[in-house]
Structure formats: C-alpha cells, structure tokens
C-alpha cells in the first residue's frame, strides 16, 4: 500500500493529461504534428499507469490511498485507487488512447484545440474515478463536462450547436442538483470525505434522517441524469450522435461516470445494516433501469444512422447496469462490471466505425431528424429514389472483382463490433450477458423461485440484444452489402488501427474471460463490503517531513 502511495502513481492519471493539455496550449495551434504527438504520448502514459495501478491493486489486494496535500483523510483531499477505480481508469485511458490516435487523422483539423480539450476531458474522467470526496467529485465532473461541451461543439454546424445547447442546459441543471445534494449531505454529516461519511451515516439521529435521505436522493438524481436513466436521458442520443467520432467514443465512458458514482455511493452510504443497498434507491434503480433498457431497445430498432444506433446502445447498456445495480446481488454485479467494460468498448468502436462506413453512403436527405424520415427497412425506398444507379450492371461488374482492402477491413470490423454490441457469440459481449443472466437465474437460498423483476430483466436484456442485432444487420446491408456503385471507403492506418485494437481487446476478453471474471468478482465483493475501503482511507498516514 505504501509502495503505491510513495510512487505518486495514483495522482498521475490526473496530472499527466493536465500537463499535456497545458503544454499543447502553449504550442501554437499550427504545430499540429507536435500537438498530436504530445496528446498520444500522454494518453499512452495514462494507459500504462492505469494498468500498473490495476495490477498492483489486484496483486496486493490493497487500496492505494494518496493524500495530495499531505493532510490526514477526513480533513485533506484523498485520491483512492481500489479495484473499481483502477478498472474504470484502464477502460477510460484505453478508449482515450484509441480516440486520440483516431483524431490525428482528420478531426483535430476541423477546429482549434481539439487535442488539449480531449486531454482535459480525460483528466476530468480520471479524477472523477479516483477522488474520495464529494466536492472534488463535483469539481472533476465539471472539468469533464466543460471539456465535453467544447468537444461536442467541435466542428460546429447547426445540428451540433442545437444538441450542444440542450446538452449544456441539462448538465448545468444537473450540476445545480449535484450542489444541492452535496450541501444537504454536508449539512447533516459535517463531512465530505466518502469514507468519513460512510462511518457517520449510521450514527445520524432519527430526526435528521429525512433531510439526509432527501439530500441523497437529490444527489442521486444528478448522477442519474449523467447516466441517462429513462425520463432523464433524452439529451443523450441527439448530443452523442452529433458529436465527432473520437469525441463520441470517449463520451461513451461519461455515462459510466454516473453509474460509477451510483455504485460507489450505493456501496458506501446507502446501505442498511446487512450491507444491502438501501431499498428505496435499489427500487428506483431497478424500475428506472428496466424502463431505460426498454427505451434503448425501442430506440435501437428505430434508428437508421449508425451514430444513433451506437447512442441507443449506450442507453441500453446504462439501463442494464442500473437495473443490475438495483438487484444488489454480488454475483450479478460482477457480471455487470464485466458487461460495463465490454459494452463501453463496443459502443465506442461503433462510434469510430460509423464514419468510414457511412462516408460513402448515398447522401442523406437534409431532413430535420433521422428518426423523422419515413424510411423503409433496409433503405429500400432509397434504392428507388436513386434510380440512376443501375443495380444490374453493378452486380455483374462485381463478380470476380477484387475487393479493396479497406472495404474488407471495414466490413469485418463492422461485423465484429455488431457482435460486440448485440452480445452475440463468439465475442465477449455474449459472455458478459451470460454471466449476468446466470447470476440472476440462480435460485437464491431460501427463495421459492425467480422473482418477477428478474424475469423482466432477463427478457429485456435478451430483447435488447435482438434489437441491436436487427438494427445493425439492417445498417450493414444498407451500407456494406447492397451494391450501390459507390467508391470503397477511405480509411487511414491511424483510423483503422484503433478500431482494430479495440476489437482485438474484445476478442482477447473471450480468451481471458476467466481472469477477467475473477477480477470483476473481487471488485463486486469489495463493493458489497466497503469496510476495506473505509479502513484504508481512514488509516492512511501522512508522509513525514521531507516527503517521498
């Protein structure tokens, strides 16, 4: 434990991107090559640090606590790297690396300061996963959101600006709720440190409990807005689907910050005497999660544009995770954590892939919203509209012609990411879903059978996979299979490589499913019993005079 603390490794995922962003702002905007190198190096360093932290934490079974101001825990700020944090860090920094490499091909030229904003966003997300007190969680949330506003608007255009304005407004209201919740919890407990709050929560006298619960509910509302739970999540799809591809790929992690915060709060504060999640919160998460999952499923079927499909996949994944958290079973949580990582990677891959797949598509009619167009399945009506494309000639010409390598790559990558998003075998999304369903269908001791919400969960998870498969097969037929006489997609190596590596990670998770599930199981166990976390934070010692 002291080994981690003295190495200053825990604070590196926050400091490195911040320093890189500052350096890039100091470099002139025209020096794009240097900026790109700094950004990619910083992302790579973050990934290395995150993996090192995850391995150390997992091997020692200990929680790394870092005290940036060298004050003991309830008074000073603390950063904590436990299994859950480091898992999220690895996920974020891996997607960050993929996106920052992808952005060097095209997107960083669409406007100024793409790469610095990107690094600031990484810093915000990393900080939110590491911080161990409520107010710094707010600050890192705001850092992350401020950068995401800039990234969402990157490239400009009326559609982005409209989605951006709505996104800004809803997130500012969310931040307001966050602050109200923080203030109320501080007013009752007199502390902001997670571990200290967890200790004090049990000792709050009955008259104050109402205020405490109200504060906790308002705070959770802010996280649920971020996690896009059903009635609060209508902002997500327009915002994410109009963002540039590499920005959208990291936005996929941002909804998971809300889920992470809820898991953390649920494990530390909102627990009854037996260590089960508070019944009111659990009920809300379960009902809201199921509604979100149903909404995401319907949205998947209704979407035609790939970016919208990916956005609804994120909504469905959020719903699955919220509902799984609502059940409060450690085995289910373990499966859900595995699913969290894989579904985020899958959605991010689809965002990155949407551009090369759709760039050669027949131009969209300039309608308002994609969903509002009277589209027939498989884009049949478009075939008729573009009557000048002679299908027969094309088909004959296709026979015996060599496919361009990029077309083959895009096609294969599309199939791979579709399998990941839909959770079909042989890729790893399937294993995660099986792990969740097996956990929920296993009869609990003393229980007569599987309760109704569990059946609803099972049905919706399977249906959402079916919906994703349908929707992606339809897009695949329209964009990649049906001959339309368009040129082969152009794809540079720096765009193809991140997609390939993310997909390879999905395949690797099949091979390494046993250790991954073991890690997820340990993480879920530590979430279910938060004494280790509280003990590590409260017993963290300050460093003697001359520092490390």
């Amino acid at each position, binding site marked *: 434990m002291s080994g981690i603390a003295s190495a200053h490794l825990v604070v590196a995922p926050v400091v490195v991107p911040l320093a890189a962003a500052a350096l890039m702002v100091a470099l002139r905007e025209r020096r794009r090559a240097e900026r790109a190198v700094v950004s990619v190096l910083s992302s790579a360093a973050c990934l290395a640090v995150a993996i090192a932290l995850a391995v150390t934490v997992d091997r020692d079974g200990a929680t790394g606590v870092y005290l940036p101001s060298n004050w003991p825990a309830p008074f000073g700020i603390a950063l904590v790297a436990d299994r859950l944090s480091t898992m999220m860090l690895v996920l974020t920094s891996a997607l960050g690396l993929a996106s920052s490499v992808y952005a060097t091909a095209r997107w960083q030229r669409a406007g100024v300061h793409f790469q610095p904003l990107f690094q600031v966003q990484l810093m915000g997300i990393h900080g939110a996963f590491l911080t161990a007190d409520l*107010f710094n969680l707010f*600050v890192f949330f*705001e850092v992350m959101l*401020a950068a995401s*506003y800039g990234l969402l*608007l990157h490239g*400009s*255009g*009326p559609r982005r*600006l*409209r989605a*951006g*304005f*709505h996104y*800004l*407004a809803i997130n*500012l*209201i969310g*931040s*307001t709720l966050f*602050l*109200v919740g*923080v*203030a*109320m919890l*501080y*007013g009752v407990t007199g502390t*902001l440190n997670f571990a200290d709050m967890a200790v004090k929560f049990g000792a709050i006298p009955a008259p104050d409990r109402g205020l405490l619960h109200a504060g906790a509910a308002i705070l959770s509302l802010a996280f649920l807005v971020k996690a896009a739970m059903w009635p609060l999540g209508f902002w997500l799809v327009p915002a994410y689907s109009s963002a540039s591809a590499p920005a959208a790929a990291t936005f996929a992690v941002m909804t998971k910050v809300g889920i992470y915060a809820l898991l953390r709060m649920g494990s530390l504060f909102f627990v009854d005497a037996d260590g089960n999640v508070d019944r009111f919160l659990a009920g809300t998460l379960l009902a809201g999660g199921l509604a979100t999952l149903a909404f995401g499923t319907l949205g998947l079927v209704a979407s035609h544009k790939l970016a919208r499909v990916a956005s609804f996949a994120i909504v469905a994944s959020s719903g699955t995770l919220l509902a799984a958290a609502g059940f409060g079973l450690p085995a289910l949580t373990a499966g859900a954590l595995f699913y969290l990582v894989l579904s985020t990677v899958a959605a991010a891959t689809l965002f990155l892939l949407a551009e090369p797949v759709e760039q050669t598509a027949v131009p969209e009619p300039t309608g*308002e919203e994609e969903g509002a167009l009277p589209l027939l399945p498989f884009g049949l009506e478009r075939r008729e509209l573009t009557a000048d494309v002679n299908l027969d000639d094309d088909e004959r010409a296709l026979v015996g012609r060599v496919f361009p390598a990029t077309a083959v790559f895009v096609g294969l990558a599309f199939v791979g990411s579709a399998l990941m998003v839909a959770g079909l075998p042989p890729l790893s999304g399937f294993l995660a879903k099986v792990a969740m369903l097996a956990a929920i269908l296993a009869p609990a001791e003393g229980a007569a059978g599987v309760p109704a919400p569990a059946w609803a969960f099972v049905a919706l998870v399977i249906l959402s996979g079916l919906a994703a498969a349908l929707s992606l097969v339809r897009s695949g037929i329209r964009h990649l299979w049906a001959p339309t006489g368009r040129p082969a997609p152009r794809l540079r190596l720096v765009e193809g490589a991140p997609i390939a590596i993310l997909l390879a990670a999905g395949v690797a998770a099949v091979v390494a499913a046993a250790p991954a599930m073991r890690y997820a199981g340990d993480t879920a166990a530590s979430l279910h019993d938060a004494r280790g976390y509280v003990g590590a934070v409260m017993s963290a010692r300050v460093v003697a005079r001359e520092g490390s």
Partner: protein
Amino acid sequence: MEVVVSLAIGALGGSGVWLVLRPRSFQVLLGLSLLSYAVNLFIFSMGSLSIDAEPIVVAGRVGDLLHYTDPMPQALVLTAIVIGFAMTALCLVVLLAFRGFAGSDHVDGAPDSRDHDDGSRA
C-alpha cells in the same frame, strides 16, 4: 434571518425554474444563472447561518461552531461561483452562435414569428 435567506433562495430558485422552462434561449440562460445564485445561497445556509462570527480560529476563543462560522461552505461556494460563472459565459457563446445559425432564439431553433408561449417542436 433564516426566514429572509430561505425566502430569497425560494424566490431565486422559483424564478430560475420558471425561466429555464421558457422557450427562448436567453430566458433559459437567465434561469440557469438565477438557479446557480439560489444554490450558492443554499450552500451557505447549510453551514448554519451566523452573524459576526469569524471563519478562522482566533487565539483565546474556544474552537467550536458556536463561536465561529463554518469555513467549509464558504470554500465550496467560492468554487461553485467560479465554475458557475465560467459555464454561464460558455453557455452565452453557444447561445449566440446557435442564434446565428438558426435565425431565431427559440431553444429548438424553430422559426420565429410564432406565439412566444408555444413551446411545441418544429
């Protein structure tokens, strides 16, 4: 004092919520600002309101919250003000750019010359 502060928070918060729900983007912006003022006052009130009490320990006085005001909410409010201010400025820039593209100040970019209270989508 408690009554005055809570009335002020209520008035600011209520006006803020009403303005945020209006169809014009500038009204939304003003509503967001009012909401952030309400929240800042609210954070202050959570550290127990007191008059003429210092936040920093003075020699020879017992160090408890009977003799001092809680310095923590003040630090929180300061941070919240800075963040809220920056976000409002950013929101204003987005609003102006959006207005330039859409040609109207409706929150959905709907064409102008409609009943201002009609929040229906285009």
